[in-house]
């Protein structure tokens, strides 16, 4: 599958596993986990620089923007204004025009405010951003995001950090069939089989953070996720057999005594 590249807005990506950088023990572990995962897209949050303790290291000293595509996100933004402001700050900080756009609707579920999301996406697309929106598993909203110019859509599998896995495979499948841009399943994956399942459904990529960073052995889980995404993609392309209620012998009757 060497030529099985993911292309979004003219950019080519080698890995179909994208990873977050939060919740690790330290930057060294973050770096190692990313290496083990094989991901070439790494999402980061935008926050105030710590001006009182300048001894704190910078994440990008560990994750080389020349080696990885840095995908800034608007994590923590609950209004259109905030999401737009953080996106502009991310671009001004100078890594790229990409943004993983989040406009959240509720603190307990961290579900997206999809009306706000569409509005923010519209504004940012006009400003030249490559907007990758974190959205609900709603095919109609996904289509609206494409209509305002998003070159990919990132529906959730389950609430962020929940590890519940693919809660609504049928909606995700409908999104994958209806929407003509790459679909990246973002959030909710708990273990390798969840990632493989997302890819088997036809996802173009999977983005995760907690499933790796929160595992007892993050580096081993990072590697497991790499193979899960790869295996799921292969299986999707291979085309699975249909489900049948009864057995079908796989050995011939002919030649039996």
């Amino acid at each position, binding site marked *: 599958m060497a030529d099985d590249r993911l292309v979004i807005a003219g950019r080519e990506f080698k890995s179909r596993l994208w*990873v*977050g*950088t*939060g*919740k*690790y023990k330290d*930057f060294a572990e*973050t770096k190692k986990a990313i290496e083990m995962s094989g991901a070439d897209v790494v*999402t*980061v*949050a*935008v*926050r*105030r*620089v710590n*001006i*009182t303790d*300048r001894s704190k290291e*910078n*994440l*990008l000293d560990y994750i080389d923007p020349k080696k990885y595509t*840095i995908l*800034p*996100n608007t*994590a*923590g*933004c609950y209004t259109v204004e905030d999401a737009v402001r953080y996106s*502009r*700050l*991310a*671009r*001004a*900080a*100078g*890594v790229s025009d990409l943004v993983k756009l*989040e406009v*959240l609707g509720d*603190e307990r579920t*961290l579900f997206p405010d999809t009306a706000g999301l569409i509005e923010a996406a519209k504004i940012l697309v006009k400003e030249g951003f490559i907007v990758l929106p*974190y959205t609900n598993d709603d095919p109609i909203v996904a289509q609206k995001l494409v209509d305002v110019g998003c070159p990919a859509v990132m529906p959730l599998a389950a609430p*962020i*950090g929940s590890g519940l896995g693919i809660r609504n495979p049928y909606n995700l499948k409908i999104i994958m069939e209806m929407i003509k841009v790459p679909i990246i399943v*973002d*959030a909710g994956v708990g273990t390798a089989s969840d990632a493989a399942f997302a890819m088997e459904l036809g996802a173009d990529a999977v*983005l*995760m*953070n*907690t499933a790796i*960073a929160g595992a007892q052995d993050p580096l081993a889980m990072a590697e497991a996720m790499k193979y899960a995404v790869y295996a799921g993609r292969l299986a999707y392309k291979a085309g699975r057999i249909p489900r049948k209620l009864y057995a079908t012998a796989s050995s011939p009757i002919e030649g039996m005594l």
Partner: protein
Amino acid sequence: MQNAIKIHVNGEERAWRSGATVSDLLTELDIKTERVAVELNLEILDRAAFDQRQIKDGDRVEIMSFIGGGSSSRGQHGR
């Protein structure tokens, strides 16, 4: 010319001197200009403007950068 003024940097009040630029402030705080964004009174500054823009009394400066984070958390993500 070196009169003391008060400004807010990342939400904290700070004594500063009039006539100094954004670049001067970043230098003083030991912050490398690469990969930071500076917002002055809600206006995001072009990097090229750091050397010219002077910070005035009462100004609010936000200096932003990238930290570990995947998806949303309520407040501080990662560390």
